[in-house]
């Protein structure tokens, strides 16, 4: 490896890099130094200040510019003769089709989210191009090689679903700070400053046994959260405070069932928390009357106004209350243009301050320990911790694998794990790739079972929760036999589009040809060249905690064919996966498995290839590394909270 012959061999190869971030910068540099001369680079992001600790091709002056373009320019400075094509765009765009992928001898991923990884995996399979995947989180990293027909594809091993919480945990019974943060982001912030026409998933009306069960948010009149005439911003903020931390809690306490086995939350009222506040009350006339448009300042901060300098310090209740009030006022005074359309952004200082304060106040109410802005921001923004050293190491390993692939040494390809604590004296652990999983629905076209309540679930539910979220399909085309039930595309005629739209909200069983047990739906995505078949199986009830979506996908075909057999429990990720969501990952704190269980993810039977050679106690090693592997895959862009739109009407306990 690395000989002159090798160098000559790779010079003419065309390589595709997906991602110009942490791994991407290191990878581009190393590829070019190694002698690669034709590189395409795709990245949709622009440069941010927090990138600069490791994405060394970028400077402070580049903030806001395209990563792909700036990376290319930086590298040309030390190797001007290299042909680098920079694409500023999303790899999921249709321009990056199978023909685009076919021009490359190898694809190298430096992505930070599962969605894109799955998409690239499918395109590489379709185009027949080997894929080198990678990921890093802090000190951990791994590089994996995927050769169609020879090794597992990226999706042969199930990846953990994005973390999800049942609605009631968010709206009524939080037990961890993350629940409060989600509440603060999706409910409080959205209700005050977000797009009110967007029905939040969390605004749910449920009905059990004819009695109206209302979430505390549902109780609120939309008008309540609007500024009243004659009201100062400060008065509005105080009114909101008392409502969401005081009154709404009192209402929730009325439902005694909920609190039988749980600690009751304490209502918080402003006059108890900040008793001497009269002097801080602004006058309505000052603010609302002749509002002089103070220069809209995007980097306005409640912390700054209040003299709170240290983002790592945990504020006490009074400080949180002050930040809550101040941030609301500042939104009105200085960020009025954003009101009504605010979307949470982790780099929006004021939004982060509001979310931290609101989450902390709620946490305090429920007896949950509060956190600093620094920690809360990490949770709210799904921030992945990252350093240059791991990325550099992984990039080197990626290039080594690429060299093997391009110089006919595919037998030498390895999956390599970069670990923090040595495993059998090793910091870099190579493992032979496994053979393809014969039950992988992506590379082996295995049929799937869709367990769903066909009377209540709609096609929209199937598309959003199953096809897009679980199966990673981007633009599905759904058929039942020879009937086209659904498709997407810009060239769709209006009447066709209307027809599909009308079907979306119909329950499956009420389709012209009812979709019930035994029906097979074919799903295709032409862009990904992906197809699979879903065998439908009706199921009445789903467990609210473990199956919050109300829909399940499994590889358990036998249960459909013989409908009298009891439903086999869908496999949940292995117990070891508890490690997946440890403190280091996404800053979620320690998640207990009995509490917010993950969405049950499709788990193909993972049969080890029979010819796979095993090193001594490799199974043990692999189990340990598998969790490590999966940890690094889970990225920032994957939604950390998945909230569902339909509430299972028939709960096990409350069968009508």
């Amino acid at each position: 490896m690395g000989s002159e012959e090798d160098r000559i061999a790779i010079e003419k190869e065309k390589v595709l890099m997906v991602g110009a971030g942490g791994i991407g910068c290191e990878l581009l540099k190393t590829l070019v130094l190694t002698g690669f001369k034709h590189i395409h680079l795709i990245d949709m992001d622009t440069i941010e200040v927090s990138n600069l600790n490791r994405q060394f091709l970028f400077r402070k002056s580049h903030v806001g510019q395209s990563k792909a373009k700036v990376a290319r320019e930086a590298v040309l400075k030390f190797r001007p003769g290299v042909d680098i094509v920079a694409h500023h765009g999303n790899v999921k765009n249709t321009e990056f089709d199978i023909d685009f992928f076919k021009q490359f001898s190898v694809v190298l991923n430096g992505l930070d989210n599962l969605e894109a990884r799955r998409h690239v995996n499918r395109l590489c399979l379709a185009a027949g191009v080997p894929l080198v995947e990678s990921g890093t989180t802090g000190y951990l990293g791994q590089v994996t090689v995927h050769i169609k027909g020879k090794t597992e594809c990226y999706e042969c091993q199930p990846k953990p679903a994005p973390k999800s919480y049942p609605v009631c945990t968010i709206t009524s019974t939080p037990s961890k700070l993350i629940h409060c943060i989600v509440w603060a982001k999706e409910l409080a912030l959205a209700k005050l400053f977000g797009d009110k026409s967007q029905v939040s998933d969390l605004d749910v009306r449920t009905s059990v046994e004819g009695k109206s069960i209302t979430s505390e948010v549902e109780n609120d009149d939309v008008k309540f959260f609007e500024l009243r005439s004659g009201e100062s911003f400060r008065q509005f903020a105080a009114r909101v405070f008392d409502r969401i931390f005081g009154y709404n809690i009192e209402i929730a306490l009325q439902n005694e069932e909920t609190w039988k086995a749980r600690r009751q939350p304490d209502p918080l009222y402003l006059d108890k928390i900040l008793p001497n506040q009269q002097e801080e009350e602004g006058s309505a006339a000052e603010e609302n009357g002749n509002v002089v448009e103070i220069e809209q300042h995007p980097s306005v901060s409640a912390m700054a106004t209040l003299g709170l300098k240290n983002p790592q310090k945990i504020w006490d209740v009074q400080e949180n209350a002050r930040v809550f009030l101040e941030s609301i006022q500042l939104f009105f005074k200085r960020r009025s243009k954003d009101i009504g359309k605010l979307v949470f952004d982790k780099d929006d200082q004021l939004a982060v301050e509001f979310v931290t304060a609101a989450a902390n106040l709620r946490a305090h109410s429920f007896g949950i320990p509060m956190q600093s802005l620094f920690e809360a921001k990490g949770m709210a923004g799904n921030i992945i911790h990252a350093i240059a050293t791991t990325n550099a190491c992984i990039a080197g390993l990626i290039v080594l694998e690429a060299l093997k692939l391009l110089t006919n040494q595919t037998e030498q390809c390895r999956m390599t794990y970069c670990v923090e604590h040595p495993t059998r004296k090793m910091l870099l652990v190579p493992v032979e790739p496994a053979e393809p999983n014969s039950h992988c629905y992506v590379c082996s076209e295995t049929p799937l079972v869709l367990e769903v309540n066909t009377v209540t679930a709609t096609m929209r539910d199937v598309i959003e929760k199953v096809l897009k979220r679980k199966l990673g399909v981007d633009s599905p085309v759904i058929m039942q036999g020879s009937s086209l039930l659904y498709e997407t595309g810009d060239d769709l005629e209006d009447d066709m589009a209307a027809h599909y739209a009308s079907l979306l909200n119909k329950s499956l069983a009420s389709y012209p040809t009812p979709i019930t047990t035994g029906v097979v739906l074919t799903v295709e995505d032409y862009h990904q060249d992906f197809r699979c078949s879903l065998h439908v199986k009706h199921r009445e009830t789903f467990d609210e905690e473990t199956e919050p979506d109300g829909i399940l996908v499994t590889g358990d075909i036998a249960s459909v064919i013989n409908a009298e057999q009891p439903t086999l429990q869908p496999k949940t990720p292995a117990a070891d996966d508890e490690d997946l969501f440890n403190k280091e990952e996404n800053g979620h704190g320690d998640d207990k498995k009995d509490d917010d269980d993950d969405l049950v993810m499709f788990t193909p039977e993972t049969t080890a290839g029979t010819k796979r050679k095993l090193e001594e106690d490799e199974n043990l090693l692999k189990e340990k590394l598998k969790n490590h592997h999966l940890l690094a895959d889970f990225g920032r862009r994957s939604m950390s909270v998945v909230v569902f739109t339909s509430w299972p009407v028939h709960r096990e306990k409350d069968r009508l």
Partner: protein
Amino acid sequence: MESVSELLTEQEAAIYDRQIRIWGADAQRKLSKARILVVGITGVVAETCKNIVLAGIGSLVLMDDSPMTFEASAANFLVPFDELEGQGNSIATVCASSLRDFNPMVQVSVEEGGISSKPDEFYDRFDAVIMGRSSLTLRTQVNEACRKRPHRVAFYSVDCRGTCGSLFVDLQRHSFTSKKAGDDKAAQQDISFPSLQEALNVPWSSFNKRTSKLLFALRIIDQFEVDVGRRPGQLSSQDLPDLISYRGKMCAIQKVPESFVPDNLLQKLASVGGTELPPVCAIIGGILGQELIKAMSCKGEPLKNFFFFDASDGKGIIECVVPSQMNDH
């Protein structure tokens, strides 16, 4: 209430946010006080410098008077292409300029002259010294000099040849906090390291069979280069017969069979000479960078005391080479 001076500056907090989430603000502060000396700039050393500058060390002094050549820049991305036109700048000067760009908060400077001519007090300016490719004689000399100083000067040596890379660490006595895998709380620990000479003196017959062969192969090459007066890395396949006879001599002295060091490993190292493979530089530079960060922040268990990597099998192996009388950690 923390004093304002103890807080990271806003700029530091913004740029270092992602790494502070790994090791904390306290470790970041310690790092920002670290003074590092680098001697001999090869590709792997350039990688290491990039990593530690990005991480936010206090200061970096580069020593390498060699002139800029095409060969020197082959695996070194710190050299802008137009520098190769022979403007007469030393490697250190050119690299320093690029490194400053990566992080203006780090003081990067150049020291002229050879390290062997520096007085003992020279080392007092530093918390760590990284030796790039150098003769074994010089490495042991500098290591001894570091160990004589009143305050601890950490010592690292690193070299990459073809598909292989190696690293040596001497932190003398080191205290650190670390979280063991699976534990919640961080615990304070102490660890001590042998000097390079002490490690070299450990008889080969005391190593177990699974010890990385690279350890022995590189010793043979080191000794060969010293004895015949070769510039380190200046080897070719023509030296193979001599290397094999060296192997014979050294294995006899050490009372181990010659099969301890496979022919093909010696052959590979001879034919590659001093050429660095950029991906290997990136890997070793990453590992070394991380080791230095751990040592300077006193957070995380440092590797003790050798690290070897060979792209041929892809393993990155730690070998603990300590004299038997040392209290093994």
